[in-house]
């Protein structure tokens, strides 16, 4: 039974707006004929994802998303675009010759996933009003005690990536 008190109108409206913005700009990322426009559309998708994380009460991940993705990764992408393409305007040949094959593959995949999710999760509700915001203290406790080994591994991956990127990209 659907009670009026169960429907969290403000959160659902917010989710709808954010989801629509994310899907529209994600479609622009894969369909735009201008590389810089695609990169800026990706910024909107990332920002929408950060807003969704706030809606899911994961504020630390949201802030990290803004700092790392919108701040650092997008600057990297724009540098990549500028260093590999002198021309910043429209380009006609961004797609493969047989790019049309991707459409049925993506639609088939989406169909399978939507069926499986609808079958598996049905109308399971997230308790949107109860529960508290995930505290950064709890996350850091988790990272630095049970997940310390993956954390070390990740630090090593980042170090290797930094050194590898320098070695690959330097001129001589």
């Amino acid at each position, binding site marked *: 039974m659907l009670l009026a008190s169960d429907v*969290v109108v403000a959160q*659902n409206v917010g*989710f709808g707006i954010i*989801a629509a913005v*994310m*899907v529209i700009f*994600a479609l622009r*990322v*894969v369909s735009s004929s201008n*590389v810089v426009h695609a990169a800026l559309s*990706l910024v909107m*998708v*990332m920002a929408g*994802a950060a807003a*969704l*994380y706030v809606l*899911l009460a*994961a504020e*630390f*991940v949201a802030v*990290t*998303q803004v700092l790392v*993705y919108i701040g*650092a*990764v997008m600057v*990297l992408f724009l540098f*990549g675009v500028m*260093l*590999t393409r002198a021309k910043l305007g429209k380009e006609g*040949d*961004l*797609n*493969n010759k047989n*790019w049309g094959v*991707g*459409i049925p*593959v*993506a*639609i088939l*995949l*989406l169909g399978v*996933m*939507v069926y499986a*999710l609808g079958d598996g*999760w*049905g109308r*399971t*509700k*997230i308790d949107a009003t109860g*529960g508290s915001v*995930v505290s950064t203290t*709890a996350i850091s406790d*988790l*990272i630095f005690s049970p997940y310390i080994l*993956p954390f070390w591994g*990740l630090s090593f991956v*980042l170090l290797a*990536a930094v050194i590898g*990127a320098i070695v690959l*990209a330097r001129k001589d």
Partner: protein
Amino acid sequence: MLVNQFLMLGAVLFCIGVYGVLARKNAVMVLMSIELILNSVNINLLAFDRLNGSIDGNVFALFIIAVAAAEVGVGLAMVLLIYRNRKSIALDELSEMKG
């Protein structure tokens, strides 16, 4: 809120990313599509986190963000190297290893 709202949005973004990886020729655009896929996974992790009232998913999401940053760094360095050697980053022209 239904958990399926978030899962379906994640599925849609994932499929858009897969289409981008398949259809794009420019290597930088393919890397952008991979970012879309990684973001959709993060949305799923945090939705399940909220559903179960745990916080392990937040840690996984942070790890994914860090690995994605490393991946973009190395990927763009490789793209830069390919561009320097060939003056082009069209992926369908990289066929020297074809037997």
